[in-house]
C-alpha cells in the first residue's frame, strides 16, 4: 500500500509539472496579452494610452520577456508559494482567491450534502421499486434535471421566486446588506438567498446520482448472490444495505475525484447568472482579461484538486470494496 501511494504521488507531481506548462501555454494562446486586452477595453471607452506607459507596464509585468523565461519565473515563484499578482486587480493572487474561497466551499459543500441526502434514498427507492409510479416520477425528474441547462433553470427560478414570493433576484444578499458588516440580520438575509442556488446547483447533481445509483443497484439486485441471500431467508433490508447498495455506491465514490475541484470552482455559468461571488466566475473573468497569474493559479489549483480527488476516491474505493483492495495487493 505504501509503495502504491508513493507511486501515485510521484505520478501526481509529474502530472502537475506537465499541467503547469500546458496551463501556461494555453492561457497565452489567445492573441496579445493582458495589456492588449486592457488597452482594448480602455479604447472601447474612448481612452487612449501612450506607448511609453504601455512599455513601462509591459516591463513591470514581465510581459516583454520570451515565453519560456516567463514560464520559469512563474513556476519558480509558484514553488515558493508566490503565485504572483493579479494584473487586473493589482493584488496578490492568493488574496484574491482566498477572498472567494470560503463562500465557494460553503455553498458547494451544503449543496453536496443536500444532493446526497436527496439522491441516495431516491436512487435506492427507484431501483427497489422499478417501474412503479415513484420510479417513473424520479426518472422524469432525473432526465429533466440532467437535460435542463442550469443557467436557464436559474433564470427561470429567479423570475418565479421574485414574481410569486417577492424574493430578491441574484446575489447572496439583499441590497441593504451588500456592503454591510456581518450581523445576525445579514446571516438571515443570506439564508433567504441560499435556496435558489442550492436548488439550481443541486438539481443536475441529484438527477445524475439518482440515475447512476438506480442503474448500478438494479444490476446488483439481479445477481446470484442476492437471490441466494433471499433464498436463505435473509431480511430484505439487511440484504439490500449489506451487499448491493455498498457495491452500487462504487461509481458514486469514484466521482469524488471530480467533486473536489467542483466544490472550489462551483458551477461557473450558474454562479455568473446568479451573481454568486465564487471562484468559477473569477476564473472566467481572469481568462477573458488574460490575467495570466490569476487564471494560472486557479487552473493549477483545480488541476491539483482533481489529482488529489482521484487519489482519495481510489483509496476510498479500496476501503469500501475489498475486491479492489485485494487487486491492489496482488499487483503490488
Amino acid at each position: 500500500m505504501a509503495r502504491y501511494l508513493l507511486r501515485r504521488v510521484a505520478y501526481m507531481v509529474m502530472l502537475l509539472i506537465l499541467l503547469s506548462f500546458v496551463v501556461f501555454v494555453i492561457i497565452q494562446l489567445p492573441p496579445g496579452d493582458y495589456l492588449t486586452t486592457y488597452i482594448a477595453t480602455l479604447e472601447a471607452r474612448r481612452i487612449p494610452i501612450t506607448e511609453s506607459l504601455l512599455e513601462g507596464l509591459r516591463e513591470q509585468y514581465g510581459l516583454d520577456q520570451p515565453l519560456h523565461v516567463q514560464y520559469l519565473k512563474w513556476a519558480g515563484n509558484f514553488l515558493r508559494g508566490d503565485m504572483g499578482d493579479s494584473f487586473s486587480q493589482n493584488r496578490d493572487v492568493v488574496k484574491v482567491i482566498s477572498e472567494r474561497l470560503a463562500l465557494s466551499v460553503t455553498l458547494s459543500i451544503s449543496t453536496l450534502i443536500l444532493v446526497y441526502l436527496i439522491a441516495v434514498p431516491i436512487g435506492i427507492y427507484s431501483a427497489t421499486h422499478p417501474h412503479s409510479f415513484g420510479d417513473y416520477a424520479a426518472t422524469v425528474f432525473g432526465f429533466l434535471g440532467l437535460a435542463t441547462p442550469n443557467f436557464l433553470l436559474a433564470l427561470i427560478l429567479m423570475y418565479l421566486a421574485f414574481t410569486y414570493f417577492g424574493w430578491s433576484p441574484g446575489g447572496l444578499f439583499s441590497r441593504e446588506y451588500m456592503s454591510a458588516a456581518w450581523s445576525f440580520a445579514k446571516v438571515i438575509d443570506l439564508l433567504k438567498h441560499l435556496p435558489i442556488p442550492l436548488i439550481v446547483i443541486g438539481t443536475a447533481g441529484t438527477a445524475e446520482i439518482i440515475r447512476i445509483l438506480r442503474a448500478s443497484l438494479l444490476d446488483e439486485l439481479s445477481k446470484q448472490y442476492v437471490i441466494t441471500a433471499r433464498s436463505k431467508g435473509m431480511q430484505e433490508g439487511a440484504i439490500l444495505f449489506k451487499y448491493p447498495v455498498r457495491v452500487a455506491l462504487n461509481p458514486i465514490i469514484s466521482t469524488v475525484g471530480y467533486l473536489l475541484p467542483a466544490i472550489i470552482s462551483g458551477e461557473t455559468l450558474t454562479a455568473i447568472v446568479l451573481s454568486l461571488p465564487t471562484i468559477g466566475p473569477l476564473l472566467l473573468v481572469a481568462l477573458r482579461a488574460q490575467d495570466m497569474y490569476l487564471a494560472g493559479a486557479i487552473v493549477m489549483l483545480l488541476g491539483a484538486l482533481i489529482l488529489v480527488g482521484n487519489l482519495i476516491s481510489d483509496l476510498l474505493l479500496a476501503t469500501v470494496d475489498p475486491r479492489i483492495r485485494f487487486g491492489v495487493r496482488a499487483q503490488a
Partner: protein
Amino acid sequence: MYKALIMGIALLTVNAVLFAGGSTDSGSTSAPAASMAASGEYSEAPMLAAMVAAGELPPVAERLPVEPPVMEPIDSVGTYGDTIYVFVNSTEPWNTLQEETERGSYLAYIRADTTVVPNLAKGFDLADDFLSLTITLREGAQWSDGQPFTADDIVFAYEDWHFDSRVGSGTQAFWMNKVRRAIKIDDYNVRLETDVPYPVMLAKMGEPAGGDWHSYLPKHYLEKFHIKYNPDADALAKELGYDSWSLAFNAHDWEYQNGFRHLIDDNEPRPTMQPWKLIEVTDTTKVHERNPYFYKVDELGQQLPYLDRIIAGIADMETIQLKIIAGEVDYDFVNATSDNYALYKENEAAGGYLLHEVPVNQIPIAFAFNQTHEEKGHIFRDLRFRQAMSLAINAEEVLDSVYFGLGEPMVFPVADATFSPPEWSNNPMDAYDVDEANRLLDAVGLDQRDGDGWRLGEDGNQFTITIEGRIQGEHSATGKSIELIREYWRAVGVHTEVKLSDNALHAQRRDGNLLEVNVGTWGFPSEARQYMIDREAWVHGSHDLHWATAWGDWLMAWIQVEEGTRSLSDYEGGVLPGLEPPEEFKQLFQWGEELQQTVLGSPEYIETARKIYGFHFDNLLMQGIVGGQPLLVVAKDNLVNVPKGYFGSAAWWGDLNIEAEQLYFK
C-alpha cells in the same frame, strides 16, 4: 415628436458673444449664493453636521468656495437622503452613476442652446484670435481632503502629465490635441495656449476634456510620485512595489486606476472634486460616500450632493435585468437595453420605477466596409456595392423585430443638424429594394453565381464577406440585428458570415487591417458632440466603426509630422504607417481639421460641415440601419431630478451623470 426634440437640442441658437471670444463668468447665477455666503446661511447634510459637531470637519461655510456655483434644478430643489442603489456588471468604472465620480465635475456645462455655463470654474475668456483660453477658478474651492483647488492643479495636469512623455496618458492628443502650453497667471487664473486657432476648446470645458483626469489633477497628492518634484520618487515607487516612478505615478493619477491600488494599499483615497468619493471596493460592491468639500450648493444654500452614498452591487447583466423589474435598481441607464423595452414597460408599476426615454439619437446598429481591405477593398470601394448592401436590408423589419419599433430606419443619421440641407432628411438608400440591390451587385461584377445561387468573385470562387463585431458590446440587441443582416445579404446571393470576437482580438484584427465589414453602435446625440469629439469618425473612421483602418493610421501619423509633434524618424523605417489615402480622402481629413478652427454655428462652420457630411451622405462610408433611438433610463418613481431631455455635453451617455448631485428621493 422625437425629431422635434432633436431639433430642439440642436444648435439653432449660438451664443455669439461667447463663441466670438467674449468673456463669461458665473454672473447672476452665483449672486444668491454669494449673499448666503456673506450671511453664513449654508446648510449641510446631517451626516456632515454631526462630523462638524464632533470637531472632525470645519464648518460648511469654510468648506465651500467664496462664490459656490448654484445648481439649476432639473425638477426641483431637494432634501437630504442617505443611499442610492445601483447595479453594475464589473468593478470597472463607466457604469451607472459611477461615471460621475470619475469624469464629472467639468469646469463648465454646455446648455441645450450651446451656451457654456461655468461650473467648477468661475469663468472663461476665449481670445479673439482663438489662440488661447483663460480659465478663472473659484477662490476657496477645495479637494475632498480639504486642500485648495488652484491653477497649479491645471498646470500640473498639462505640463507634468500630458506634456511629459514619461507619464503622458495619451488623452491629450485625443481630447485637446492642439493645446500646447498651460500658463499660470495667478492662483485662480490659468491660460491654455495653442499654435493654431482652436475655438473648440471652450466648448470642450463642458465635456470629459474639461473634467477630472484631463483638465486637472491633485498636484499636492501626486507630486510625491513625480521625479520633477520628488528626487526620491523612484525609491518611493519601489517601496510601493512599482518598477519606476512613472508607473507609480500612473497608478495614482486616476481614481479608478487599475485595481484601485491607492485605496487598497495606500489606504489613502486619491483626492477628488466629485460629489462622492470612492471609499470601498470589493468583488461584489463599490461604495461611494459624499465629498464633504463638494463645491456646489442649491438655491437654499444646501451643500450638494443630496444623497450620502452610492452603493453599487456587482451582478451579471441578465440578473441586473431582473433586479430592474423587481424595483431593486434605483437608477440605471447603462444596463437597460432597448431589446428589453417591453419587459421594463410591463413591470413599471409593480417595480415602482419609471422608464424614461431620453432622446439622444442613438444608432444601435451600423456597419462599415473597410475601404482599405487588401483583398476585397476594390469591391468595397465601389459605391454601387455599398448601395446594394444598404438596399438589401429591411430596416423596418429590424426595427420592429429587434427594437420594438423604437427609432426609425436611418442610413445616414445626421439629417436634423444645422448644416443639413432639407434634401438630406431622405436618403434614397433608406429603401428596401432587393431587385435594385441585385441589379447593382450584378453591375459591380458579381454577376456570376454558383449552383446554390451564391455570387462568385472575379477569381471564380464564392464571394464571401465576414461581418465582425465585438462580443462585449453594451447592447445585446446588436447580436440579433447582425443575424438579420446576414440573412438579408445572403438573400441577394452574397455569402455572409458573422464573427463576434473579444475586444482585444477585435482590436488586433482592426489594427492589422483585417476587418471586412464591422458593426457597432453609434450615436449622433448632438451636433456639439460631433464638433467636439466625434470628428475622427467622419474623417477616417472611429474606434467603433472603422471604414478605412489603414488610411486612418497614415493620416493620424501624417498630421503629427505636419504639426511638428513627431518627425518621420519616429516611425519605423522613416515612413508613415498604414496606407496613403486617395486625394479625396486627404481632402476629407483636411476639412475635419478646418472644422475645428471654426466657431460652432458660424457660416464657415456650416460650409465646412456640409462638405464633410455631404461626402458621407453621398458615399455611405458608415451605414446605419436603425437610428433615432432614445436612451432608456430606469429611475425609481420617487427619484427626482432625473435627466429626461437634453443633458450636459452629451459627450457620452455617462454625461447623464454630470448633474447627479441633484438626485434625491421624494
